[in-house]
Every structure is written in C-alpha cells, then in structure tokens.
C-alpha cells in the first residue's frame, strides 16, 4: 500500500537564519514521566473542571537532550495533548514546538484554524527554530493537516512538513522507522476506549439541564405535598437514566445501534429505556406519557450532539440530521414537560 510513496527532499538550506543567536531561547524542558497529578488533572478536565487553565505556554521545549539533528515535533498547547506526546517519547531526544491553540487539542484547533499555517509559521520564527536544528523537517500530528497547508509552510519557512501518526502512542515507532507511518497509524479509529474517554464530557454537558429537571420535580412535589417527599427519587430516576443512556450507553453501543443517523440511534435506545421504565415504574397515563416524551427527547438530543465527539461525521450529514431531528426533539420535550407537570398537578 505504501509503494509509490514519494520521499520529498529536505535539503538542508544553509543560512536561512536571519535571527540573532541571542534572541533564541528554549522555553523549557519537559520530562516524559506522567505523575499522579497529571492523571488526576486529566480526569478533572474531562469532567469539565478547570478546563480553561489546562494549557501550557507555547514555545520550543526540550525532551531529553536534543541536538541540532534531533527531530522537531509540533503539537497543541492543551496539556492533555502535550502529556500524551511526552509520555510516548520516553528515552528519546527531541524538540517539541508547542503552538498557541488557546489550550485546545489538535483536532479541534485545526478545525478552527488555530492549529494552522499562520500560527506554525509565526511560532517557527518567534522561537528561532532554525537556529536550533540543522535539518529543515517538522513532524506534525496527522490530524493537524486540517488546519495546515504543508506547501505554504515550506514556502514561508523552508521547513518541510511530515505528517506523523494520528495517535501520539505511535510516535516513537514512526520516528524509529525513519518517519514512515504504516497505513494503520494513519487511520483514525473510534473503538470503545475512545468512546468511553469522550463520554464524561457529554454527561457533564447535561449537568445543568438535569439540575433544572430535578428542581422542577422538587417544586411539583412541594406544591402537592408542601414538602419534598421520598418519592422524588423515583420521579428523578427516569431522567438520570435518560442522561446516562444518551451520554454513556449510546456512545458505547454506537456501532451496533441501527441507522447511520445518530439521532435515530438515540431515539431507538430511548424507546428501549422507555419500555423498561413503563415495566418497572408504575405511572399514571399523563405522567407516564410526559416522562417518555422527555426521555426520548433527552436520549435523541444527547446522541445527536455526540456527533461532535466522533471522528467520522461530516458537516453536511449533521446539518441534515439537525434539520429534521431538532424540531421533533423540541416538540417532544415541550409536550413531555407539560404532560409530566400537568399530569401530577391536575
């Protein structure tokens, strides 16, 4: 599959450095050990805590003891991304050029253009990279290609862009093979581990709406009984189940759920949940209908929004899906809310 791949040249370009030696400065050294703090912090970020502060200063970093022949890896300044890269570089001596992506990961930043040609060219100039290495080669994460035009970088800076593997874990194998990626290194996958990693963010995103639902149910309880009763737990259960279904179960079962449409996948799973709820939770008709409509709206919406976390959904497809599913979701949620509240109060 790889035959015919061209080895485009990276002839050293002598004195292409206009910058002065003095202004050249390395931002710092990173080591390759991941501490428990990094791990805990990583969990925190995925669940949505302190996300804004999880970035590191852009610039040129040393990993190990790189010299003027060591490879230059380019990455985003989202700390989890940097962590993933440095963890994969144990025992290697490389330069790491960290771009200013405002603390956003490579894939999302490239989509927005912050991991892009302009920032890369600028960062190469600001850090005087050309003074630190003799060669003119950069290794970029493959997913950064959405924002970077390799030929423009070459024209502007003389540096030739090699797109490395998709996953940080493959970097050392890629470097060891002389900057050659196997076809498998070039493919994005989305296995259950990947899906599980992004699920917490989806659930955290549903935090506020869930609180609103719980507050409303508590209010209804108070109006009826003049106090919060233990029945509230049973009232709340279907909605918590719906959030977990939309945010965790749908992502996990994604490949096996019917239809290519995420909204439909969510609706199908929501229907199954609804059937279970009807079986195990005795509800009056209006109350039950309202609950089911709300549950369906929640699972369908959350499944649809999960398109954003995947690596194979196209904008055109998402537009189609949002156009037909969103009105249905809104109607279902509205009618559900009215039935649910009215069913109890009347």
């Amino acid at each position, binding site marked *: 599959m790889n035959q015919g791949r061209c080895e485009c040249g990276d002839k050293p370009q002598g004195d292409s450095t206009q910058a002065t030696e003095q202004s050249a400065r390395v931002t710092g050294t990173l080591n390759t050990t991941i501490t428990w703090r990094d791990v805990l912090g990583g969990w925190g970020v995925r669940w949505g805590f302190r996300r804004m502060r999880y970035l590191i200063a852009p610039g040129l970093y040393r990993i190990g003891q790189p010299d003027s022949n060591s490879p230059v890896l380019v990455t985003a300044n989202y700390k989890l991304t940097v962590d993933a890269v440095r963890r994969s570089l144990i025992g290697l001596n490389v330069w790491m050029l960290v771009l200013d992506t405002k603390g956003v990961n490579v894939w999302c930043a490239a989509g927005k253009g912050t991991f892009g040609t302009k920032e890369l060219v600028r960062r190469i100039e600001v850090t005087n990279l050309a003074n630190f290495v003799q060669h003119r080669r950069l290794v970029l994460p493959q997913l950064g290609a959405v924002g970077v035009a390799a030929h423009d970088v070459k024209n502007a800076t003389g540096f030739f862009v090699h797109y490395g593997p998709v996953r940080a874990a493959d970097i050392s194998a890629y470097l060891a093979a002389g900057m050659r990626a196997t076809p498998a290194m070039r493919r994005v996958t*989305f296995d259950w581990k990947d899906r599980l990693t992004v699920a917490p963010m989806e659930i955290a995103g549903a935090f506020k709406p869930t609180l609103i639902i719980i507050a409303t149910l508590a209010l209804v309880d108070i109006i009826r009984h003049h106090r919060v009763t233990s029945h509230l737990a049973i009232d709340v259960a279907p909605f918590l189940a719906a959030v977990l279904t939309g945010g965790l179960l749908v992502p996990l079962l994604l490949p096996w759920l019917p239809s290519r449409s995420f909204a439909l996948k969510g609706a199908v799973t929501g229907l199954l949940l609804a059937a279970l709820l009807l079986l195990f939770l005795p509800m009056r008709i209006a109350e039950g209908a309202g609950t089911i409509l709300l549950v369906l709206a929640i699972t369908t919406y959350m499944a649809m929004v999960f398109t954003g976390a995947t690596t194979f959904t196209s904008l055109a497809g998402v537009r189609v899906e949002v156009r037909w599913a969103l009105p249905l979701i809104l109607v279902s949620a509205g009618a559900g809310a009215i039935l649910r509240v009215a069913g109890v109060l009347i």
Partner: protein
Amino acid sequence: MRYLLNGHSLNLVPELCNGCCRCEEVCPHGVFSLVQRKAEIVNRDGCMECGACRMNCATNAISVISGVGCAQLVINSMRRKNGAGVPCECK
C-alpha cells in the same frame, strides 16, 4: 462506522494531480490511494469532509465543502442570525 452523506462534496480533478501523495498521507479515513502516480478516490463513503486533503493539495486538484461535523456547533450557529463565526466551546 459510516455516516450520512459522507463524501458527497468531495471532488478530484485527476488532470491537476501531480502525484505528490499528500492527500493519501493526510486522510484519516484512507479515502485516497495513488495509482500510477495519480490520486484516486477509493473510499468515498469514508470521507468525513474534514478538508485536510484539499488544504494540502498544492495544485488544487481536490475540492470539498468542509466543516466540523458537530451537531452542537450547527445548532449554535442556527441560533445566531448570521451563522458564521460561532465559536465552539469544545476542547
């Protein structure tokens, strides 16, 4: 896994292709393959229209209407009058 409408807007003009391999290199879904030094679309259905190939094709042989396939982003931009330039809150 496959998705709706994948690869619909992807287009390749073989006459402009210089065989540089960049499209094959950057595509995360193996959509392109080089056959006798010319790019070919071999897996259109896998294309998520990310735009990486067009971005890195120096001869403009590739066109694709690209964007981020994220429902939240689409909804956010529908809520504003002039959809463009809506920031996404994801990381």
